[in-house]
């Protein structure tokens, strides 16, 4: 086949595909035969007759590009299913309104594990199909009927060694001890892990944390509040507070702590001891437009170690699939919040407690902050 002729064939195929004369599978197969699969991917044809592109919703920013490079590009390549990433932010309310409109346009969402549980109970999400998704790829406790951990992240304690030298804080009790460790603090505005930190500081043993004693935790937070400069709500904000030396200690994301340590050339220090590990889960909307099977296949694809490693390299988020550890260097494992070594040092946030109590407790928590 001459090159000219091949190109002509491809053009005819694309034309036919655009007019809906052939379906996606035929098109992909034919393009494969013509060794033009990459071109097929780029041709941007929407398959009205044979499924819509899968819409994956995350929190935007750097994650847009990172998801594309880790998961969606490779998924499209191997299945021919197109994926579009929407960075609108899948808050619980936004997902509910998708369903309430009667015409959801989202398929797969990246949400907190407990949100997936809450929304699943309200039938806003569909049960995951564990015949397509291999549930055993993630650790027990990191999957439930409506959500499976896509990656892990952690709330750690970071401190400024310019203030404390090598004698830095080692426990949440130290974090609360403003006499021994003077300076301002920063805590997370959306509460994850903060009540746990307060209770640990108040002497509750780690294994007896749940169910959380909310009034006790809030009293402890009130105690620290005069010394809290800011309750951060974005990663960038927490980073700014630490790097500018506005606070001497903060409870922040491990990914940010790692960047801070690098940017400050070791001035900001941190560790995984007593940190709070949380899972971000994949979930699928009920009646999702692009089809249930396509969504499940995507989630299964996103749990594979290669993509998980890629995401770790791009964003620093911990892989939920333990098999990824084997692909990592020792140095990477040391930084990874999900590695066996680090996992043991941390406390895993209790998904069920959060699913039952997050909404009501968050309101109380925020009331305490703005008093």
């Amino acid at each position, binding site marked *: 086949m001459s090159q000219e002729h091949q190109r002509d064939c491809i053009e005819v195929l694309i034309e036919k595909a655009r007019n809906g004369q052939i379906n996606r599978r035929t098109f992909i197969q034919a393009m494969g035969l013509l060794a033009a699969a990459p071109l097929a991917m780029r041709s941007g044809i929407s398959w009205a007759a044979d499924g819509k592109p899968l819409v994956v919703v995350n929190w935007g920013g750097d994650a847009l590009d990172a998801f594309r490079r880790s998961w969606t590009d490779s998924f499209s390549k191997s299945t021919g299913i197109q994926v579009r990433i929407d960075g609108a932010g899948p808050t619980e309310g936004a997902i509910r309104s998708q369903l309430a409109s009667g015409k959801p346009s989202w398929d797969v969402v990246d949400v907190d594990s407990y949100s997936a549980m809450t929304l699943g109970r309200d039938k806003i999400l569909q049960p995951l199909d564990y015949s397509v998704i291999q549930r055993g790829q993630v650790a027990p406790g990191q999957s439930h009927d409506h959500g499976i951990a896509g990656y892990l992240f952690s709330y750690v304690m970071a401190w400024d060694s310019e203030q404390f030298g090598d004698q830095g804080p080692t426990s949440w009790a130290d974090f609360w001890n403003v006499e021994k460790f003077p300076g301002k603090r920063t805590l997370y505005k959306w509460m994850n892990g903060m009540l746990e930190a307060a209770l640990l500081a108040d002497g509750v043993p780690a294994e007896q944390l749940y169910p959380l004693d909310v009034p006790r935790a809030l009293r402890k937070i009130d105690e620290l509040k005069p010394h809290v400069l800011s309750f951060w*709500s974005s990663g960038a904000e927490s980073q*700014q507070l630490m790097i500018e030396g506005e606070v001497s200690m903060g409870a922040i994301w491990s990914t940010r702590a790692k960047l801070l340590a690098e940017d400050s050339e070791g001035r900001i220090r941190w560790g995984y001891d007593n940190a709070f590990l949380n899972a971000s889960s994949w979930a699928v909307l009920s009646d999702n437009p692009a089809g249930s099977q396509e969504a499940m296949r995507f989630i299964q694809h996103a749990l594979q170690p290669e993509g998980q490693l890629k995401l770790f390299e791009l964003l620093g988020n911990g892989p939920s699939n333990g098999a990824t550890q084997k692909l990592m260097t020792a140095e990477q494992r040391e930084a990874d919040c999900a590695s066996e070594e680090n996992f043991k040092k941390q406390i895993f946030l209790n998904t069920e407690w959060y699913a039952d109590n997050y909404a009501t407790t968050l309101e109380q928590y925020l009331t305490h902050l703005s008093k």
Partner: protein
Amino acid sequence: MSTTHSANLERSLLLIPLPLLLLVFYLLPFLGVVGWSFTLPEPGIEQYQRIATDPAIHDMLWRTLRLCLTVSTLALVIGYLLAYCWVFSPPFWQRMVEICIFIPFWISVLVRAFGWLIALRSNGVLNGGLMGLGLIDSPLQLTRNETGVVIGMLHFMVPYALFPLLSSMRQLDQRVLLASRGLGAGALRTFWQVLLPQTVPGLLGAFIMVFVFCLGFFITPVLLGGGQTVMIAEYVFLQMFQTSNWGLGAALSVVLLALVSALIWLLLRITRVNRLVG
């Protein structure tokens, strides 16, 4: 007869398109939201009772009112000053005012907030300057509290306050001002007794716009308030998107609507500017 009739028809043709558009695209779907406030999570007026009795909500409403009033008043003062300068100064000053209005507009609110955080922090430019001059002993806490929120919002609102003031002042009969000065009135007296009363419609329009805009504002308070200055817009966001209490969010916006309507009505009454509404 027939001519009046057709003239009325022509007038209606001018009048009707906008209300019709808003009726279909906004009012009807909004009635659904009003419905939620009585039906979610259970039918009844439980959400309104909560708004009437919950001290945390009262705190939040009071903070909202306090901050929005402060910002609107300051924005009006600065806007008035700049509008006055624009109308009554030589071209050079006019261009300067224009630059001051258009340049901030291109700077994203996010970058502006970052700028204020950098400039106002305890070891920042402003505190450094004030301490260098010996005006203060220890740095002032200017951000991550209500002060920071006011500064950030004020900066955003000034251009919006300026527009109605500008058109109001431009249309003023300048001869009246000259006459006042000519009759021996001082600058201040001319301002209080002649200029200000004549621009009341502009002030009123600017105030309503800026105040209402402030009520709906929520990113600047989030970024500059240190997470501790939750106002109504963020509170409603919280109810709708974080805690999924749609009934309360809906009820709050109905209450807000009632408050805003009452405020506008009251202002029109006090200032007797019925001219503004036909």
